[in-house]
Each structure stands twice: as C-alpha cells, then as structure tokens.
C-alpha cells in the first residue's frame, strides 16, 4: 500500500513539476485516484516530503476546502444542497428519500463504502432546486421514484467497477 501510494504521489507531483504552487490540483488528483476518496495522513506526509513543504500546510489545505477530505469516503459522494434556495424549495423531502434509499443518515457512508451522503452549500443549480450533486453530476426536479432509479444506476455503475 505504502509503495503504491509513494508511486502514485510521485507520478502526480512530477506531472506538476514538484512545485508546491500546484498543491490544490495535486491533492485533487491524488484524492480522486486513492482508495477511500480522501487524502490519508500517510499520503499527506508523502506529498509534503515530495514538495518540500510542511505536513501542517498539507493538512491545513485538505481540511480547508470542502472538495478535499481527510477522512475516508465512499466512491460516490451524494451531496444535497442546503443553501438558501434549496431550503426554500423544501429539500427535506429529498434528504429523506436519499436516506431511505441508501440506508444511512446525512454525514454517513454506506457499510459497503460505496456511497457517502452529505450536505453541500450552493452548487449553482438553484433553477432546478432542490438540487443534488452526485460526484460531478447535478440533478433536480427529483421524485421518490427518480431517486430510487438514480441510486440504482449508480449502484450498477459501481458494480461494474
């Protein structure tokens, strides 16, 4: 594991010329290619060494930005918007539907580590509020039935992997 991580980190950092200015894209790429969809303490240590910066700086950045995570997450991140427009448009129903379908509460990851259900702030999809973002794709105008189909389609995609 450690060797693999070392290899991945080196490959990604090399692609950015080992320049710490590129810490954000480096972290985003390593996270995306890492098991658990997060930056582990071990990964942070290796990145710090490769870029010749402190571990605390890496940790600061990872915990500051909401697209980066210092804790393991599912392969599929389901983010329900709870900003102004989506709250007016009653996102609570949407939350229940996803909680029912995934069998977890907001903030939790499914036991098979496939899905993490969280809240997000505005994702710029207020015209289809209440909106949900699943990995990079955004959905609105959902019904109970559509949520079931959506989760099933992501489950099927994950099964193929």
């Amino acid at each position, binding site marked *: 594991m450690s060797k693999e991580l070392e290899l991945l980190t080196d490959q990604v950092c090399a692609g950015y010329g080992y320049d710490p*200015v*590129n810490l954000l894209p480096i972290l*985003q790429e390593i996270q995306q290619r890492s098991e658990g969809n997060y930056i582990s303490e071990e990964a942070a240590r290796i990145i710090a060494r490769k870029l010749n910066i402190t571990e605390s700086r890496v940790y600061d950045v990872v915990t500051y930005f909401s697209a980066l995570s210092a804790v393991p997450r599912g392969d599929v991140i389901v983010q329900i918007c709870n900003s*102004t427009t989506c709250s007016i448009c009653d996102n609570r129903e949407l939350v229940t539907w996803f909680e029912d379908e995934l069998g977890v509460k907001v903030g939790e990851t499914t036991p098979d580590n496939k899905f993490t259900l969280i809240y997000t702030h*505005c994702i710029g999809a*207020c015209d289809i*509020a209440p909106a949900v973002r699943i990995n990079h794709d955004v959905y609105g105008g959902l019904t109970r039935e559509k949520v079931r189909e959506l989760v099933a389609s992501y489950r099927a995609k994950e099964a193929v992997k």
Partner: protein
Amino acid sequence: MKQVHEVHFITELFGKYDGSSLQSYLEAGGFKPLQQLLAGGSEKILKEIDESGLQGRGGAAYPTGRKLRQFLSEKAPRKFVVCNADEGEPGTFKDRELLRRNIYQVIEGMIITAVCTQAGEGIIYVREEYTNIHDHIEQAIESCYQHNYLGKNILGSGFSFELRLFSGAGSYVCGEGFAMCESMEGKSGRPRTKPPYVKQAGFLNLPTLVINTETLSAIVSIIRHGAHEFRKYGTAESPGTKLISVSGKVERPGVYEIPFGLTINEIVNGLAGGMKNGKKGNFVQIGGASGGILPARLWDTKYTYEDFSRAGMSVGSGAIVVADTETKLLDYLKVVQDFFNHESCGKCTPCREGNRQLRIIFDKIAAGTATAEDFYRMEIVLDVMGSTSLCGSGKTEVVPFNTAIKYFPEEFAVFAEFEKRAVI
C-alpha cells in the same frame, strides 16, 4: 403591469451558435471585437469601455474602465488576468450559463482585457462545483490555441497570451481576489491584508487583475455594438443590462438578462412567471447570501445600483431568491447564518467569532429560548462584524440580518415577548 421582456445584449449569441465550436462562434461574428482592437489600438477600446459606464459585475460595482486603466499602469515582467468564475454566492448561476453557452465570448473578453492592459498570462478560475463543465472550457481554450487566438503572436499581432483553467476546491471566500490568489498558490483561501492590492501584488505577488465572467462578456458586447447601444438600456447611474439569476418560489426560475430599472415585481411576476402555485410573496433576497432582504410590500423597488443602495442593499451577484409566506424569515436567516458559519475562513476575529456568536443566538431562537438581551447582543455583533472584518465577506454578511431587522421588526419583537414570559 406592463409587459416585460428580457433583453439580449450580453446574451445575444445564446443559442445562436453551437457553444462548443470555435468555427460557429466565428460565423456568428465572434472575434470581430478582438480584430477591431488589434486594428485600432487599445486606447480606443478603453475609451469605449469608459463611455459605456460598465461596472464590475462580481458585486463590487467598480467602474471597469478605471479598473483596466489602473491595471495597465502596473508595470511588471509578468502580469495576470484572472476570470473570476468562482460563482459561490448562493442563488447565483448566471456565470454558469455564460460558461456553458458562450465560453468563446468569455475567452475573447480575456484576450481583449489582456491586450488592453498588457498582461501576458491568464487563468479562468472555475469553482469546483462546476467540474461538469471544466472539459467544455478546456476544449474551447484548446481550440483557441489551435487557431492562434491564444499563444504566441496572436493573429500576427506581436501580442502573446497564455490561458489555462484552474479549478477551485470548494470555498466561498475564494471568490475574493486575495483568497483566490492564495488558493492558486497552493494555500488555504484566506484573504490578505490590503494594501498592497491584488492589482499590485496578487498571484505570486505579481500584478493580477481579477475580473468577473459577466464583466468580461459585457466588454465584448460593448465593443461589438458600441457604448451608446449599451447605454440605451438602464438608467443614468446604472447603465446597461445585467444578468440575474431568479430562483425559489417562482413559476419560471432561470437566468434573465434585464435592463437596469425593472422593478422586483416586474421580474418576479413578469419574467419569472409569478409566484409558484399562486402563493403570496413574502420577501426576496437580493445579490446572494450576503445580500439584502426586501419585503413583498417593497417589490416596486427598481433593480438599480442607486435604488438598492437607498434600501440598504446592493445588486451583488445578481441573485434574486424569492420566498413565499410558507418560508419563515427567521428560519431562512438561520440557513443564511449556517452558510457563513461554515464558510468564514477564520482568519480575522470579527467574522470568525461573530459567526460563532450569531450561531448561538440563532440556535436559541430555534429552541424558543432567545431573550431581548440576545437580540441586543446580535445587533452589537453585527455592528462589529460589518465595520471591522478583514474582507468583503465578513463586512457584507451583516446585510441580510440588518435589512431583515429594518423591514421585519415584528419578527424580532418576539424576543421581547420571551423576556416578558421569563419575568412572569
């Protein structure tokens, strides 16, 4: 109510060409403004922008012509133009449409701005939440390189401009110029102390011009049609058109281009098709989470910089979030406060601690245990935050609360009621 229509000045090419093809952009008249600049020189173009009266559309409303001239006077071997597409104000999605449907005009706006201010490098800073359009933007950049609209010696003009996309990583404060620079340098997005200003020492401590996606698009349209055409729209103090994002309890939420001067009523009941399911309007929030709350009884207020200023708010990001009477104002303010509590970068004490105090008070309100003293404390906290926070985020965050207190005093009278009950 008179019939209202949206206008298509900045959005003229929406749907007129295949948004992903440079060839079709050219056929629709794209890059003619750039040719005009390369043939006639930048002074003529800067003058046109001055005359248009265009103000920065990111929220600060600084005169664009002046901003460009100031940046031109900054001399350095490397200068950066950054397109601010970190559209993070809740309720805002108009830049998303500009990027999706007319990315080439945004790029053309960047090239024109770079030539006029003698900057050789550019970055489109797109929020991470828009990852699903990153490829589309990068392909457009690539096409422009292939046809020498970007790169060395653009169209034989002797001018070179390198452009790339940078993805944010999810942070509201990064929409602020310095915080944006910090994040592009691989650090947490926390604003720096001014001066020096971003235009003097921004990204890598080099002169950097951070300019909004809509402003860049508007520059191109202004050159294409002339400042006089732009000024046919709007009012004397708010010339031109504005892209607004209407959302919430309306029949037709969406992005509309409007001439300044329409009333909120005309926008809500005209353009956006009226209140959803015929419900009664309660309030709108103007310009994002940090924008003012305007009650339905004042919806004949005109959408202009000057009218909003008189009402204690601003145009901001162009967001209009519409709430009906099913939404309780205090519940809504709690959502707004949660947002800032999460997004405050934590660098300066007034914003960091102020938000903590506000959260305590709003939790008490939700639990029904708030007292008159909490209300007074809230007013003090808001006063300190608004006047002493380091960046615009902390300073403007108080606007929704202050306008809510101003226009809905009865909602806050409940504090005094709690007090009475406690005494009994």
